[in-house]
């Protein structure tokens, strides 16, 4: 992300930088021992974040020590992370009351090192009872969008419209959430079938905001990433349905798959457009916006269907029995 090399000291004193480096070297070696490489990336983000926040400030060794102290000892952090990753004996009480170093805020930014469960992912994306639109990221550093809060702000639903999110939605409607990403994936496959052989050997693989290409690659390698992302989305979706997860989790899996498939299809579409049409025609951003909008629409539609089912049950029930 940052162009500057992480090795230099970035305006921090040598002593401060050394503290940070020593800390994360110990976390990494502890992670190696426990074979929990899943955590590496998130831990790496955490280290980057510490540097970014402290660079430019005086960042004395005392400040640094205090910040690192909040994370606990490197070995404890690694142990908890690997326990969470391997499903081993996690330090349940500490995790539950939120004092675990695996989740918290560091220099103003929330982080989460526990591996995501489908249920937790689903709850972050659709939590209409939580008024905050930006909620702590499901995994890693930063925030995720709570579509439920947006729907409530826009007056499309009320926070307590459904007792259990999508709990009363009839199965055929839930299946719509699975059909949507499949349709986008099919559209992507059709695009590939139509254009792949006709594409020039070198295609654009990265674009600036205006849609102008700024990096090129072979057309085969350029296809790899979108295809992998689409497959990942479909696998996640399939798992959620095969394992009969609760409705909210299945819908969230559908939402995630829709976004992954839309981004993939849009990336490929942008390759085609760049090869054939003007450089400045952007497909990527509209494609991503489409994915987000469709996902949002899906959540809201299902929530309103669930609400009307609940409503009908109560209103018809009472009219038969007379008023309450």
């Amino acid at each position, binding site marked *: 992300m940052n162009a500057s090399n992480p090795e230099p000291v970035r305006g921090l004193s040598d002593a401060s930088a050394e503290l940070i480096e020593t800390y994360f070297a110990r976390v990494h070696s502890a992670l190696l021992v426990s074979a929990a490489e899943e955590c590496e990336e998130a831990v790496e983000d955490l280290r980057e974040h510490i540097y970014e926040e402290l660079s430019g400030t005086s960042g004395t060794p005392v400040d640094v020590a205090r910040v690192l102290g909040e994370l606990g000892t490197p070995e404890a952090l690694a142990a908890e992370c690997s326990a969470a990753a391997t499903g081993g004996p996690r330090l349940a009480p500490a995790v539950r009351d939120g004092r675990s170093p695996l989740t918290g805020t560091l220099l103003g930014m929330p982080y989460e090192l526990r591996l995501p469960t489908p249920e937790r992912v689903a709850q972050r994306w659709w939590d*209409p*009872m939580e*008024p905050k639109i930006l909620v702590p990221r499901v995994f890693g550093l930063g925030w995720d969008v709570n579509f439920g809060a947006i729907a409530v702000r826009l007056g499309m639903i*009320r*926070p*307590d*419209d459904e007792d259990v999110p999508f709990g009363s939605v009839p199965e055929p409607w839930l299946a719509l959430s699975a059909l949507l990403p499949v349709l986008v994936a099919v559209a992507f496959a059709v695009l590939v079938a139509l254009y792949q052989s006709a594409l020039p050997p070198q295609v654009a693989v990265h674009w600036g905001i205006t849609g102008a290409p700024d990096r090129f690659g072979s057309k085969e390698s350029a296809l790899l990433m979108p295809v992998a992302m689409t497959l990942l989305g479909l696998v996640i979706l399939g798992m959620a349905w095969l394992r009969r997860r609760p409705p909210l989790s299945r819908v969230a899996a559908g939402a995630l798959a829709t976004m992954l498939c839309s981004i993939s299809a849009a990336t490929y579409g942008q390759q085609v457009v760049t090869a054939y049409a003007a450089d400045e025609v952007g497909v990527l951003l509209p494609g991503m916006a489409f994915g987000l909008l469709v996902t949002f629409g899906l959540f809201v539609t299902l929530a309103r269907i669930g609400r009307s089912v609940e409503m009908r049950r109560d*209103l018809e029930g009472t009219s038969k029995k007379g008023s*309450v």
Partner: protein
Amino acid sequence: MGNDTDSRLSQFRKGVVELAILALLHRGEAYGGEIVERLAGHPGLAISAGTVYPLLSRLKKSGLIDSLWRESPVGPPRKYYRLSAEGDVEFTAMAKAWDGVTDAMDGLLGKEVTR
């Protein structure tokens, strides 16, 4: 330091808010927005929509309150909440326990016991 104070305050408010909701529903049924609004009228409780709705959901799950969609005199139908029989018993017990706590705390904090 300030953070610790905040988290301690929110710890004990959590329990209080539950009782506040039960007390409000003990006086009569109400819908979500109404509960939020009426509790917001007591700034000392520092209750927001973000606290009320999850609590309503939890109280419903534990069977202390029921909810029912009903036609509203104005606008679309609303989901009304009310105490269940079990919730009524629980409220009476909690209200009694609360009296004990406030009496004791008033004493400990050196305030006049007005009761």
